[in-house]
């Protein structure tokens, strides 16, 4: 073989490869697709199953998929099955972006996200691609349609939860107390801090207020507790996930301190109680917009029906599972409304439906009431429930409180 024909062969092979890939590669739909009659409804789900927040992300995803399974079993939405594409991104934001690109390529009509990381990273993209986005990140800026037109926050925001917490503290303490706020050392953690301080001056409460950043990966939070103690704090509001909050509870017990923890939704769950242990968690207050199974809201009946059918033990279902179920419920109802309004199911159509359909009934699972969006506000609910950890369980103090 001469040099000439060898390079010719190589060139020919390369050209052939290109031609073949041209036949195969092109034409896979692009973005914000429209799904029509009888066809399945594609929804992209980005979940954290094995990452940093996987201990609550997994049940959330399971609850969401359970809802989809339930609805599909009942015939789907207006006769159309939901085609859920669910993938794990392990709280690594670049992976979430990659999954998102893939879903857009697959022509999904809506996205269910998970946490602050992915929600923030994708809020601009979903606005550009016109895909409604719901997640478990209840940050205040996402409720403003001018900044985040396609984000919908179904439950009360961290700031609203903080306001409810402060109201409760004001009442419980008799109007005069010191409050320490322990928060995750990141934008997620800082989100409600300033709003809390503003609320105190707005309502004229006589509450001392001091925020402390929780360093990550610590084996104890005694340093923060001693600073809170010198502040004279009797209440500690925690804006963080369950494991650090549980550690704080354990440290309070070990130190024999007389302080009450008021957890905002991310640590206000059964996981926090089980990690801290029944004794250490006893008496602490949990601010949680999603209704646990023990509160027997009307919305729990459907869940029970599904659990019985599948033979799943109800006691294994925590608040995060219910949150996933309820959030998907909101989106499904929005899709149903969009289908009834017009004929083409697109992202903008779902957005419009969600904004104009009025109160969405979720059986009291979210904030003890209904969820409602409008063109000026994507804040679905402002109410939240207050619970106390007693005997290893979340016991209701107040069902549905507005800030």
């Amino acid at each position, binding site marked *: 073989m001469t040099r000439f024909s060898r390079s010719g062969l190589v060139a020919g092979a390369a050209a052939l490869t290109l031609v073949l890939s041209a036949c195969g590669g092109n034409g896979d739909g692009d973005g914000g697709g429209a799904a029509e009659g009888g066809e399945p409804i594609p929804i992209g789900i980005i979940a954290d199953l094995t990452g940093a927040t996987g201990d609550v992300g997994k049940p959330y995803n399971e609850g969401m998929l359970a809802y989809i399974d339930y609805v599909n079993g009942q015939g789907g939405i207006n006769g159309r099955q939901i085609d859920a594409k669910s993938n794990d991104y392990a709280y690594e934001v670049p992976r979430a972006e990659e999954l998102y690109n893939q879903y857009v390529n697959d022509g999904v009509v809506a996205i269910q996200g998970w946490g602050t990381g992915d929600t923030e990273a994708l809020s601009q993209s979903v606005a550009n691609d016109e895909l409604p986005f719901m997640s478990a990140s209840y940050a205040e800026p996402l409720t403003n349609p001018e900044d985040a037109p396609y984000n919908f926050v179904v439950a009360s925001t961290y700031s609203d939860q903080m306001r409810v917490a402060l109201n409760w503290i004001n009442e419980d303490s008799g109007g005069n107390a010191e409050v320490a706020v322990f928060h995750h050392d990141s934008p997620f953690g800082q989100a409600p801090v300033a709003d809390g301080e503003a609320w105190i001056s707005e309502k004229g409460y006589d509450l001392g207020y001091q925020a402390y*950043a929780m360093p990550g990966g610590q084996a104890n939070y005694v340093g923060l507790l001693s600073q809170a103690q010198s502040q004279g704090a009797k209440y500690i509001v925690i804006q963080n996930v369950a494991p650090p909050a549980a550690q704080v509870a354990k440290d309070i017990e070990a130190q024999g301190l007389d302080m009450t923890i008021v957890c905002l939704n991310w640590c206000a769950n059964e996981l926090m109680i089980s990690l801290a242990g029944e004794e250490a968690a006893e008496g602490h207050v949990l601010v949680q917009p999603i209704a646990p199974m023990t509160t027997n809201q009307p919305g729990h009946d459907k869940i029970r029906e599904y659990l019985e059918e599948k033979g799943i033990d109800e006691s294994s279902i925590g608040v995060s599972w219910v949150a996933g179920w309820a959030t998907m419920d909101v989106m499904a109802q929005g899709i149903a409304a969009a289908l009834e309004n017009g004929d083409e199911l697109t992202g903008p159509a779902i957005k419009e439906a969600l904004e104009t359909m009025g109160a969405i009934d979720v059986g009291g699972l979210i904030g003890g009431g209904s969820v409602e969006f409008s063109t000026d506000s994507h804040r679905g609910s402002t109410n939240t429930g207050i619970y106390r950890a007693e005997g290893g369980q979340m016991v209701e103090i107040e069902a549905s409180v507005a800030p």
Partner: protein
Amino acid sequence: MAATATGIHHRSYASELRLRATRAEYVRLALLAVLLVVVPFVMDNYWLSIINTIFIAVIGAVGLNILVGYTGQISLGQGGFLAVGAYASVILSDRIGLPTPLSIALAVALTAVVGTFFGLPGLRLKGLYLAIATLASQQIIEFFIRRDYGGFLTEGRGYINVDRLEVGPFKIGARSVFEFQWYWILAVIAVLAVICARNLFRTGLGRSFMAVRDQDIAAEAIGVNLTRAKLTAFAVSSSFVGLAGALTAHYSEVVTWEKFTLEVSILYLAMIIVGGLGSVAGAVYGAVFMTLLPVLIRNVANAASGSVPFLADQLPAIQNAAFGAIIIAFLIFEPRGLDRIWQRMKDYFRVWPFRY
């Protein structure tokens, strides 16, 4: 059969200055160019987005290779430098209103300055100590962007939404052409970066970097200004990395602290190790390989999910495990990386039917 470059002897300046030495190399280069031009027309948006990510990774990897591969200075701080480039470019272009190319250029310059500053320990330290110092710089930078003192970086929001790239009258379009248009911008910049890095090592400055790597005390003895060489290496490398950071910010249109963690630093190091230290082509191969690897694993796991559901369930863990295993395997079996493997393939054909 001079299909590959071997025993090259130049007899004139013109021949030495040429881009490539043999005809076969020119042919391969032409094929690559054709491929680059044809690809955006045949690939769908998803794959184009992956290719765009690869281009940005190439720029970063080439930059890191200048520092680690050619100058022998170990650095674990790339995540931090990417962050500096990203935040600087976005704040300058969106908040202060400079035109985007200018803001990117300024961000590159700023990252070069920051990189030089963190390279100062490199003047006194070597090897492991420098690695630890850069690890510390990564953690410190990460702390600052996460804490966002005074809300300065993100205006209290915690993340920055970046406006769509706009250069004069030209603005990147909607989703359907977004990836396509970005492809051209990134391809051109990546190619320029690679050529720039290649040419750097034909100059005296580049050779002084290599002298510092090989025997720095001896290099000083023959007149290489160690301080200048090391600091310039840090500056040049950081500017490439800053460019990658700025481009990533404008391309993905969001800047959050979670994208600039220690894992990212390690990812870039892995790219150049797997690709081959001390070789620009190696950095490119490594960037391509490491970016495609998780995608490939996901496709394999999804395809096999019927028979082996374990793979799909534990996908991120498997991706990470494969990542670690590949690094170890390459270092044990082929420490000079993909570049060397390619060389060996070429050599095999060159001396065939002989074995060596």
